[in-house]
């Protein structure tokens, strides 16, 4: 059985969702109430692979909302409690979605494996980053040519290059062959180490990199204050918004600048679930974060281990393996053409 740990994108959305799902007391509750509320296993689903294989899964809402990020202890407890519930529910592999894995890593929760009576078994959890990195690479490979960008000569900037997903994307694109990798991150030292391990790539500031890049892969969330001078960008420019939350489209909207939601996959058929609506997917019955899909893939493939775990452990072999599984079981990476179609479709 696979599990997904998710949360709403804001407190307001969470209350609306609670109302829709029949949790009226939660919908009426204030933030303090939500802080003390335990995680909820809100939905169980059966998913059928294109191969015909069926797996069962559960969606756990951690009852975390981004407004709790400033409440350090609360945020930490939310993540651990949701993981505890997943484990106690007998789920073999669970993906940490949205802020869950960010909190897990930033607050170094690896050392907190004991929650009350339960010892968390890390083998049962995955960040889903391997699949996310693979999907982002697919999105680059498919959509750049569609815009007339020749990857073989293109400059590809990776913003957040030294992170878990960013470094994997760099290695994958290096193997594939691109014109030049432009490496961008906040902290210089890991960036230098990445450059050394790659044996190539140019370290630049964000301001320097953007005007040069044909493709920009964002795997860092954007500071609220960030402003992008769209006039200075190359046209066409493909931007893959692989961070969380996804808010690049409002910052980089301009003629010739194509922003694609990164790390999103579409399944080959509808999944009868309600919960993806909270993630604001265009097609919530089929689309989901690639990290969630990784938990499904690991369950389909019966790989019951923490496939993606820790930092900078993602190998090309692991990306190839999860990528093959992704295609075999009926996932494909979200493309610009999907977004264009969604924009034209009547809103429901």
């Amino acid at each position, binding site marked *: 059985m696979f599990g997904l740990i998710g949360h709403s994108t804001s407190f307001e959305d969470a209350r609306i969702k609670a109302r829709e*799902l*029949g*949790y009226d*007391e*939660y919908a009426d*509750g204030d933030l303090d*109430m939500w802080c*003390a*509320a*335990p995680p*909820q*296993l*809100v939905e169980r689903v059966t998913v059928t692979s294109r191969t015909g294989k069926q797996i069962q899964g559960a969606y756990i809402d951690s009852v975390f909302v*981004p407004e709790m*990020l*400033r*409440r*350090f*202890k*609360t*945020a*930490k*407890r939310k993540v651990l*409690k949701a993981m505890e*519930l997943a484990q106690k529910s007998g789920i073999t592999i669970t*993906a940490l*979605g*949205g*802020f*869950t*894995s*960010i*909190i897990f*890593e*930033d*607050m170094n929760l690896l050392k907190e494996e004991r929650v*009350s*009576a339960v010892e968390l078994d890390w083998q049962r959890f995955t*960040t*889903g*980053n391997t699949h996310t990195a693979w999907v982002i690479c697919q999105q680059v490979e498919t959509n750049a040519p569609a815009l007339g960008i020749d990857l073989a000569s293109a400059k590809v900037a990776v913003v*957040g290059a030294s*992170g*878990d*997903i*960013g470094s994997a994307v760099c290695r994958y694109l290096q193997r594939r062959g691109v014109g030049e990798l432009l490496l961008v*991150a*906040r902290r210089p030292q890991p960036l230098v180490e990445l450059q050394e391990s790659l044996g190539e790539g140019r370290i630049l500031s964000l301001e320097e990199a953007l005007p040069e890049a044909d493709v920009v892969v964002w*795997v*860092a*969330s*954007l*500071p*609220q*204050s960030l402003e992008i001078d769209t006039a200075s960008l190359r046209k066409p420019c493909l931007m893959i918004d692989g961070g*969380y939350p996804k808010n690049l489209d409002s910052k980089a909207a301009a003629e010739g600048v194509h922003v694609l939601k990164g790390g999103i996959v579409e399944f080959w058929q509808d999944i009868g679930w309600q919960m993806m609506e909270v993630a604001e997917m265009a097609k919530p019955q089929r689309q989901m*974060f*690639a*990290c*969630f899909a990784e938990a499904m893939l690991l369950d389909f493939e019966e790989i019951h281990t923490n496939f993606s775990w820790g930092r900078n452990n993602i190998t090309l072999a692991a990306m190839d393996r999860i990528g093959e599984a992704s295609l075999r079981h009926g996932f494909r990476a979200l493309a610009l053409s999907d977004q264009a179609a969604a924009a034209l479709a009547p809103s429901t």
Partner: protein
Amino acid sequence: MATVEAAAATSAASPVSGGAAEACGLPDFSSATYKDAYSRINAIVIEGEQEAHDNYIAIGTLIPEQADELTKLARMELKHMKGFTACANNLGVVADMPFAKSFFAPLHDNFQKALAEGKVTTCLLIQAILIEAFAISAYHIYIPVADPFARKITEGVVKDEYTHLNYGQEWLKANLDNVREELEQANRDNLPLVRKMLEQVAGDAAVLQMDKEDLMADFLSSYQEALIEIGFTGREIARMAAAALVG
């Protein structure tokens, strides 16, 4: 899916800054402030174990075929009580028993009322589910910040309490069809009391480095789990548990 650097980059909302809030060491067990707070928290625990003993014996009168089993549980509670009394002695603290008596009074009265009316379900909910779930959570949160002596005692106790919670769960599960309505009513009547009780001692608990929100959240998790085990659905449970949060 998300990345570490993602949150770090969003410095305005970064959770990283909270690091300083972490583990500022154990409390000073010999300080007057600690002992003062401990005199009330420890008294509650002692009184709680005494109430538990009396309650199990009383429930045995309502289900005579289970009286032996319940007497066994009751005996364990007395043993716990002695353990916690030793914890106070060890720190040179005198438990404030009058405070503990008045602290438990509302729940005690509800139990006695249900007992007089022969309501097994309500009695079990109060004692074997609510009180046990709360005790388990509170003990778990106490253990990492307890003095070494109390820590050992509490670790032993917590294992026993699970068997008690389990006893209540099993009985209610087996009888759920007949007891559902009474259980929901008992939940409405008693769960808000737990929150009020917690609020009364939140300040003392904080001196012992036990956070009110942690206590509530952990209690609700245990309580929720017990209700799942008994056979309620997720939505029913969320509705029931909310009585503790908004009641």
